[in-house]
């Protein structure tokens, strides 16, 4: 590669950070007003965290799995849409061509855009985390968090791959988002749910949540009676390897995906 090796922070990330910090501007015209809104939001957050602490009695802590599962579904549904926006949105805004003529590597492009895109959602997850930690039953903490952390990241990575792929191939941002979310819904929720119903009908044990959220495991379950913990643990590993492989392929081959999609010339208004 002729270009100097990438040094320092990813330019795209810096750019997104700047835009992210600017979002404050949407709160109002005056800096004072903006700060008042931000500070009141922070105060409200702390108050609700404190009341959560008091409200969640040890007996209620079983609420954890419900809360986590709801959050995962919410996040899971956001991820493909968000990542599908990255390049499709640039294309729709007409900024993609300028970006692609810069001597940035594929890896910088994909990672920088994705990280930038997830700045907001990551902040939200970060803010939600204390609520979850407070609600975790002490006895099962290790098990619950272990299961979550082993399943969720590879799943998210897989959804990101799906999103980026759609983003590179579908022309409009809304279209890319719809396709990515649709595919994720179909394969991530609908089929496993059908599968779960099928399991139940055909007298098998009740579906576990890892079956619901980890399609691979569910599909295995469809083939035979695989409900042993040892084998379901293979699911996340399988998913992780698959997702990492997909992501690496996507990063390396991103060039071919996005650059040579035939552009749509928007005619200029003047004659």
């Amino acid at each position, binding site marked *: 590669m002729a270009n100097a090796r990438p040094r320092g922070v990813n*330019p795209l990330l810096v750019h997104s950070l700047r835009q992210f910090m600017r979002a404050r501007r949407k709160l109002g015209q005056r800096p004072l007003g903006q700060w008042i809104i931000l500070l009141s939001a922070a105060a409200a957050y702390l108050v609700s965290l404190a009341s959560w602490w008091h409200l969640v009695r040890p007996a209620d802590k079983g609420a954890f799995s419900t809360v986590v599962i709801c959050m995962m579904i919410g996040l899971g549904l956001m991820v493909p849409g968000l990542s599908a926006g990255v390049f499709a949105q640039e294309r729709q805004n007409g900024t993609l061509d300028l970006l692609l003529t810069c*001597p940035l590597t594929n890896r910088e492009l994909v990672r920088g855009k994705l990280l930038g895109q997830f700045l907001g959602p990551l902040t939200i997850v970060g803010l939600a985390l204390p609520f979850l930690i407070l609600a975790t039953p002490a006895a099962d903490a290790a098990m619950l968090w272990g299961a979550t952390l082993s399943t969720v990241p590879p799943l998210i990575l897989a959804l990101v791959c799906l999103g980026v792929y759609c983003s590179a191939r579908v022309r409009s941002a809304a279209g890319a988002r719809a396709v990515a979310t649709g595919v994720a819904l179909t394969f991530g929720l609908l089929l496993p749910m059908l599968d779960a119903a099928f399991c139940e009908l055909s007298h098998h044990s009740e579906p576990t949540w890892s079956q619901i959220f980890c399609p691979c495991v569910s599909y295995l379950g469809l083939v035979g009676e695989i409900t042993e913990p040892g084998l379901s643990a293979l699911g996340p590993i399988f998913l992780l390897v698959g997702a990492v492989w997909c992501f690496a392929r996507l990063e390396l081959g991103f060039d071919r995906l996005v650059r040579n999609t035939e552009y749509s010339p928007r005619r200029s208004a003047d004659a």
Partner: protein
Amino acid sequence: MLDLVNLTKRYHDLTAVDHLNLHLAPGEIFGFIGPNGAGKTTTIKMLATLLRPTEGDALVDGVSVVAKPEQVRSLIGYMPDNFGVYDDVKVWEYLDFFASAYRIPREQRSSLIGDVLALTDLRIKRDAFVEELSRGMKQRLCLAKTLLHDPPLLLLDEPASGLDPRARIEMRELLKQLRRTGKTILISSHILSELADFCTTVGIIEAGRLVASGSVEEIIQQTGLTRTLELRITAGLERVETVLREVEMVRDVVVDADAGTCAVSFAGELDDVADLLKMLLDDGVRVVQAMESASDLEGLFMRVTRGQVA
């Protein structure tokens, strides 16, 4: 500096660019002219490594856009015909982003940004938000962006499109300044007269094929077209016709006595205009103004192209 070798782009069954061959010497300003849908944007996008040619290749400073697009990207400055800008970003931040994307060290960026802003006359807008700039300013900002990494080749796709007459003139002045920096420039337009006076060579493309190329002079010669000279005369208008009819290369003389002007069509070179004028002045005709009519270039354009689209 730039060589196109049988450059071809096909979209399904439509050939947008058809075996284009071209050579641009360093420092050349090449006007790429053609009607709507002729394939200008497609060609420029291929040079900018945004589209892969179906066939053929283009070499920028000897580097192939097909084989080594990464290397080509730092050699070119590309300005698209239609482009958007990012929201929530200030002018200097926008340029800073591209400077970092072009791997310009942080220490050099701020002085560099100052320089390109001065060149494009946007210094007062340094801290304005990009989305708040007028269209002409955005075009200039985009031009500033293409100059950041000091590329030897500029690819400008209709830089004056959508601008009002004043902004068009400003853009042209700016481009004239760039010419002095010795860069090779490929600039597209569908108006020949807009480019004729400051391009060293022009190429007329239609339906993906180059139908004529060379200096405007050469093209006029090739196509056997006459030039039209518009004269403004304060005294001796009645003698003009008799004087000029005797000259061999003069094809037609149209006198407008009320306006005090006269249009002379002649088949000669630009240099011959001086002889014509001398002849008139010697005869006591007071010529106060003489210029080549712009509609002439339009005529040339209409003659060379046939209104075909790819």
